[in-house]
């Protein structure tokens, strides 16, 4: 999730939008839950208030219930999971990323799908232009590949067996 915050912040800059974001660090990082807030627009506070988030991106499905209260009425949810109960958007980002041998890029698959579904504040080009600013060489290539996996995935597609 840390990396996602950087991409979204950079994309906002490229799109000419002001941005404020927060992340948790330190003890929380040794396997603990990591929460990041991203706010695009003329905000003052770097924290999203309960019941005001437009979008919840969930990398670990077990964290959905813990953070659902951040969402505003009508807000959207996208969860990285194999299950699909129809209540929110889902994609098996980890499965897809693992298939191409890069499980750590699951967050980019998630991002790609969020873009495809029109859930983000920016267009695909803003995200694409942000990636080379944040990674290079083979890392960049894998990141782009994962982004595209998410962009092109259609609900109902099944990943090949792992």
């Amino acid at each position, binding site marked *: 999730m840390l990396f996602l*915050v*950087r991409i979204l*912040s*950079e994309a*906002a*800059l490229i799109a000419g939008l*002001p*941005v*404020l*974001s*927060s*992340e*948790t*660090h*330190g*003890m*929380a*990082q*040794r*396997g*603990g*839950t990591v929460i990041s807030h991203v706010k695009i627009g003329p*905000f*003052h*506070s*770097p*924290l999203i*208030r*309960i*019941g005001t988030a437009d979008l919840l991106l969930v*990398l*670990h*499905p*077990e*964290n959905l*219930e*813990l953070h*659902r*209260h951040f969402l505003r009425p009508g807000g959207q949810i996208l969860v*990285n999971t*194999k299950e699909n109960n129809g209540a929110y958007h889902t994609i098996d980002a*980890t*499965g897809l990323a693992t298939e191409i041998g890069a*499980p*750590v890029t*699951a967050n980019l698959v998630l991002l790609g799908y969020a873009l495809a579904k029109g859930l983000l504040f920016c267009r695909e080009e803003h995200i694409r232009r942000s990636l080379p600013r944040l990674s290079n060489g083979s890392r960049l290539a894998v990141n782009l590949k994962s982004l595209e996996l998410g962009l092109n995935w259609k609900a109902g597609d099944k990943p090949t067996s792992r």
Partner: protein
Amino acid sequence: MKAGELEILLGNEAIARGLLENGCTMATSYPGTPASEILSSVVEMARENGYRIHTEWSINEKVAFEVALANSYLGLRSAVSMKQVGLNVAADPLMSSAYTGVLGGFLVISADDPGPYSSQTEQDSRFLAMFAKIPVFDPASPRQAKEMIGTAFELSEKYQLPVMLRPTTRVCHARQDVPLGSILELERTPRFQRDPGRWAATPGFRYQLHLQLNEKLKQIGREINIGPRLINPKARAGSATQCVVASGVALAHVYEIMEELELLERIPLFQVLVPYPLNPEFAGELLQDFDQILVVEETYPVIELQLRHQDKIAGRLTGAVPNAGELDPLTIEQSLRRFLGLAPASIPEPKEAKERPPTLCAGCSHRAAFYAIKKAMPKAIYPSDIGCYTLGLNLGAVDTCLCMGACISQAAGFYHGFARSELQMGPPIVVTIGDSTFFHAGIPALINAVQQGARFILVILDNSTTAMTGFQPTPGSGKTADGSPATMFDLFEIVKACGVTFIHEADPYQLPEFIALIKEAAIYCRKPDGSVAVIIAKHACIMDKEALAAQPRIKVEIGEECNGCRICVDQFECPALIYDAEGNRVYIDRLLCIDCGVCLEVCPSEAIKKANKRQTTKTVPKVHKAKK
């Protein structure tokens, strides 16, 4: 990163950039969340821009402060950065330096941790600034933190006084688009101006310096350009009898909430930029013009205490604002609503879902060490300290965690406490401390323990880095902040010089041998001529890619012998070992497992064994547990 451009910067990166844009020639620090990225960003930015600056990961915050302070005596600009509890370690030079003052601007950057999220206290560095009698800036955003640096340096030089900048977690670790200014290389020649009446002032002179200090503070309080600001002048034109005063991130939250609730038209909101010394005219006008004033700040009532006529003030001291815990937006909104007589916000109740607790990484050598300690000495007292290894709590092998280096002194205290009683021989004591923590504060404590005749086992967990805060180098690493080679200090020799005679280095991965060594140490402690026994548990941190690649890979698998006893999951506690309730057995999460092989020694049924070339098929159940 060019001047005139906007760049996404972490608050700590913005602060680092601010130091370079204002001609800082020395930056020292000791790692601590949320401050750690300040120095590493200074190193990186200096390298990128060819900027000459001396940077240090000093051995502790007191030393870091003193080193940087001396640079400002030479007329050059200097900065020291640390987390709020690190300021406690640097408090001695802080207090004295307010009296001696400085020549070149000197910034004390102390980053607070309201909550706390990763500290022993949530103390307020602004209060320490008040105690020390130095001015303190309280930024509300990454942008503002950078802006304040120039002003702070100028103020420091005008009054020849250290100045504090106090960001908090939500500034340090927030990201924002920040406009970049030009990097500034100040052309100043370092010179030491002999002035023993000042720099070496004895008590008689100190009284004069104190008088001067008081006068400086009086004048700083009257500086208009750093005085409190009214955010919404239009509200002042009305007949408001209530107003809100806030500083730091709390101000940022309040501002946004008031905007959303459409209160900015009628309720004046003041931002205090320099909470201490508070502008006395501002305080006077406030108390004259308003009947009720809500003060929102964290984490101590610093502004509130400087406003007299408490009957008009609502804040931390009156219970109008909570006096513990982070002031998050929800908390602030409820305080604001209550103050203004509005109904409380109806908020959906957050669910009590199970949060994943932090744990040592799979393959961490500390886990092996703690497991061995529990196996060898199950009935001991386990004083421990601050670092990744505090997570030995999960293995039941951490009993105390007070502050940096305290574990050794506390062990000595426990020993003497039991020894003087009729018990004669108290329970065994096994201390754990990290290598960086040992260098920081453990050496004097160890010398003291040996000198005073204490007996305990000290396990120095040497993974050759300061891991918890981001793998900063230690004196044992052989390199400095910018990667240049440096003297590599040998822990073994240092421990020997502390008067210890039982010293052994061992790799905790070798569990049976490590357990035997601890038992041997215990016997030594109890001998008539016994003393402190030291075991240096040497194994590089597996987050270091080179170290990880260098260590042998021992793939393990779990056989059918697994009967779900859970000893490996509960006592060894490796996150790569997952218990499947449905099948009542344990399986290995291959995404987390690094093939360290330590768990081979753990299973009482010998179900964990070296993997054959032939893969077993039933080790992964249907539900996939995603990687952290």
